[in-house]
């Protein structure tokens, strides 16, 4: 299976660093003080299948720092393209995967540019546990 990330991932990395930077500093400070520190919260990977010309699930609820992973299970190529220009998988052939680390809270609609009937939405919370049930991961 092919795996890829988009060029726009560069813009998302600062968000990832911000997400881990504070817990990292806290952990370091506590370790230096000789105390046990709680591990940083695990980030959730949300799997989205592209199957039957649909994004499944069509709506994913995630938290900043979580990873979204789309896999094209159809026979035809698709794209995973933000309607606001924040990310774009570009051509995603069958059996390929596109991953993205979400860095900003808010609602993020996206679509397949090849097949305009295919639509999805990321609902990103500022932080805290993400909804595994909604993501299907």
């Amino acid at each position, binding site marked *: 299976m092919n795996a890829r990330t988009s060029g726009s991932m560069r813009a998302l990395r600062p968000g990832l660093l911000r997400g881990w930077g504070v817990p990292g500093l806290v952990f370091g400070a506590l370790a230096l003080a000789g105390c046990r520190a709680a591990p940083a919260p695990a980030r959730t990977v949300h799997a989205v299948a592209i199957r*039957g*010309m*649909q994004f499944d699930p069509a709506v994913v609820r995630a938290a900043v720092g979580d990873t979204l992973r789309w896999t094209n299970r*159809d*026979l*035809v*190529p698709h794209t995973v393209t933000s309607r606001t220009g924040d990310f774009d998988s570009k051509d995603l052939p*069958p059996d390929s995967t596109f991953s993205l680390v979400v860095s900003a809270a808010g609602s993020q609609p996206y679509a397949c540019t*090849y*097949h*305009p*009937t*295919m639509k999805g939405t990321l609902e990103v919370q500022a932080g805290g546990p993400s909804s595994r049930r909604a993501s299907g991961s």
Partner: protein
Amino acid sequence: MHKRFDAPLGAIPIALVLALGLLVAVPAIGRAAEAAPAETPAALTDANIAAIVLAANTIDVDNGKLAIARSKTPAVKAFAQQMITDHTSVNTKAVALAGKLGLVPVENQAGKHLVASTDATRKAMRKLSGKAFDRAYVNNEVAYHQAVIDLLDKTIVPAVQNQQLKDLLVSVRPAFVAHLEHAKMIQADLSK
């Protein structure tokens, strides 16, 4: 000026529906020719179905190539390119599956009628240009995808014997539905 194009625009979907109607009519013809069998055998073999599937995808690839050559409308050209990409992908998968199953496509009369009819449709479209071509191409895409979906649902899927071939046909149906909806969107834009 506008009236000059009414005949080809109207004739294309009718010719298509007639051609695909022949495919649907095949089981009835096959039954009538037999002496009231206790069980009606499937009129279409898997080899016939493989040939029709390959022909149906190739037809839309050829329609798309014509649209890319003749249309100057970005949305129409992009749609045409997508039809080429998607239907080529489906055919690649179908050929691979046929090879795996040792299935050699066998043409039947209905498939030949389909190809002949769509060749006539393309010939009519080649005489058009500009918006008249765009409308004729997109109208034909709407009619063609609807007819293929009906053909899949009413004739091909009920007749197919091999489960893997059936799974492939069922899995590509959503693509044809998405193409139909996409074509309708462009059709609505062109009518404005």
